[in-house]
């Protein structure tokens, strides 16, 4: 840590970690509900829908906290200056956390906007927007005052502004269900395949540059090409969500072609990571951080790239759309692209903030491998269930619950693997919150 205000990042990370664990706990409840019967009396007060809203909103909340913390860590080093206002950063952390808690309690009481992933009711949306504006103001002011622009800074700021702008499309009530879904995807798709990829690419480039010691010019050159391709394929690629919503037929072509290209920038990111790691100018000080970086690049490719590609073509998507195949892709992609990215950032920044040069990674190592292997299995099990569902329900036309009964075994497998995943998460969360210096080896 070179600047005092970087310390604020620690509290963003520390706040994000328990929420991650809570997210998984609710996920287990969901997997349980798929496999076994939850009695009517329980379902009436705590429906699957409520648990699902909590599961997904916790995901968004902890990841946004991670991105914001990451930003507060990176910006001082990039601009070579302190954050514009530490007070605003603190205010914004508490505003976001308070909104999150209010939203979660609200869901339990049935206070919801009722649109998947965007369940947060309008009054809370306004608090989120205010918080986002404060955050953007704080980050932008730091950059403007320092006036030492770099491609990493630009990408980061651009991604964050894009992220905040898109959120606005999720707030209004749309009379027409078709238009509603059209703009719903402006938030969801353009977040995860646009704005979030920008933020991720910037954070990743920064950490990679610091870890490997590869020259900034080289890193930033790759960064431009990657985000260019991310946005080229990602923006028009939104069309793969417009196949079956009542939008014009040409979306089958636009969506099909552009999203078939979506793995390209991810593959490029993987190649460039491997290249930088090979050409590194520095010693590997903390191997686990490197493991996370490489793991993130590979998992990102598998989960988002390969799995996304597999069912993005209209001819396939006609049968797999809205099935557990989507769930399989969602889990692998979010874990690979964003959970691992955030955890990599945490493992990079948290020891530095705590003043630990070389940290003891004996627990963290297990955390990484348990989580990564368990999630890969979970993705596969969801995938098997999804293929069964697509065939039995969509091709054979045998009815929803008939298909579900054939899928039960695999959803049960998800539940038990999920328990293992939870163990990995708890280990990782504990490790990050109680990092200690490595024992010096003679």
């Amino acid at each position: 840590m070179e600047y005092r205000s970087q310390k604020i990042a620690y509290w963003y990370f520390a706040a994000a970690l328990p929420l991650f664990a809570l997210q998984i706990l609710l996920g287990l409840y969901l997997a349980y509900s798929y496999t076994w019967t939850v009695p009517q009396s329980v379902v009436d007060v705590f429906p699957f829908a409520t648990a699902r809203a909590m599961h997904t909103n916790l995901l968004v909340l902890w990841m946004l906290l991670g991105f914001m913390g990451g930003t507060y860590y990176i910006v001082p080093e990039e601009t070579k200056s302190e954050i514009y206002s530490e007070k605003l950063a603190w205010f914004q952390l508490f505003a976001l956390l308070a909104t999150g808690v209010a939203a979660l309690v609200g869901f339990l009481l049935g206070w919801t906007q009722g649109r998947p992933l965007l369940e947060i009711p309008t009054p809370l949306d306004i608090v989120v927007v205010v918080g986002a504006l404060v955050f953007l103001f704080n980050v932008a002011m730091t950059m403007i005052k320092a006036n030492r622009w770099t491609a990493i800074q630009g990408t980061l700021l651009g991604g964050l502004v894009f992220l905040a702008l898109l959120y606005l499309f999720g707030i209004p009530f749309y009379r027409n269900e078709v238009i509603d879904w059209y703009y719903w995807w402006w938030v969801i798709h353009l977040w995860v395949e646009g704005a979030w990829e920008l933020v991720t690419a910037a954070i990743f480039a920064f950490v990679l540059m610091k870890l490997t010691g590869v020259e900034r010019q080289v890193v930033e050159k790759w960064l431009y090409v990657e985000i260019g391709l991310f946005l080229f394929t990602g923006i028009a690629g939104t069309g793969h969500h417009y196949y079956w919503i009542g939008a014009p037929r040409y979306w089958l072509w636009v969506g099909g072609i552009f999203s078939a290209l979506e793995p390209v920038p991810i593959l490029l990111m993987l190649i460039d990571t491997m290249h930088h790691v090979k050409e590194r100018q520095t010693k590997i000080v903390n191997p686990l951080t490197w493991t996370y970086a490489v793991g993130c690049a590979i998992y990102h490719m598998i989960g988002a790239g390969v799995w996304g590609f597999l069912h993005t073509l209209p001819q396939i998507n006609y049968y797999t759309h809205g099935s557990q195949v989507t769930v399989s892709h969602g889990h692998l992609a979010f874990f690979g692209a964003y959970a691992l990215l955030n955890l990599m950032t945490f493992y990079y920044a948290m020891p530095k903030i705590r003043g630990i040069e070389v940290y003891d990674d004996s627990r963290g190592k297990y955390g990484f491998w348990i989580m990564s292997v368990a999630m890969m299995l979970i993705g596969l099990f969801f995938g098997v269930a999804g293929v069964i569902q697509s065939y039995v329900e969509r091709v054979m036309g045998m009815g929803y619950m008939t298909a579900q009964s054939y899928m039960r075994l695999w959803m049960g497998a998800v539940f038990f693997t999920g328990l293992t995943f939870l163990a990995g998460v708890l280990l990782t969360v504990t490790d990050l919150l109680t990092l200690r210096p490595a024992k010096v080896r003679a």
Partner: protein
Amino acid sequence: MTKKVAFWIFLLGTVSSAVLFLAATWDTHRQVAVLSNVDKLDDRVVAGKRAFEKYNCNDCHTILGFGAYYAPDLTRVTQRIGDDGIRFAVQQPEKAFANSWRKMPNLRVTEAETADMIAFFRWVNEVNNNDWPPQDSKKRLSRGEQAMVTSAGVSPGAAVFQTKGCMNCHSLHGTGGTFGPALDHVGRKMTMEQIEHYVQDPKSVNPKSQMPPQKELSARELEEVAKFLSSLK
């Protein structure tokens, strides 16, 4: 490649994709009125959409394939179970799903809200969305019917006739049931349209008819079976 070239790749990629996307968005808005029958999108339907959101239905069910995957897709729910079916499931889920191993919560939806939701589902049912989901497609023949058509060279209507249990009561050339009349020459007495109508609601033509209305046939199946029967002269 220099950093400057890389920057231009970024700029060009982003702008070209964004221009295409925004142009298509503009055009989609133009066309959506027809595709989604905006003329039928009245306040009742909108009230139904609000009720649908109020009870967070979409975090268990999908609609147009989006949402959670814990319960059946609702895009064609009107076609599948009808207005009464929807009302029963929403208002008395503990009865409707008493024998199911997966339950639906009773969220105390009012009668008025249920009626609004029914209007909403009826509107969604008609959205022209490239014939998704496949299991509810009106163009669809079941797998068994498809197999007979392709492998045995049977006409689609004959395949429907054989697989949908018609021959439990009716016969052709002496084969089949005797509970209903033989249909060897039914095409002499009835046209294709009359047969389609009769099969859907026998009592409206012949109040004494014992034949149950064939509601589970898809539109394509109904059309094909009527075409087949009307050809028997």
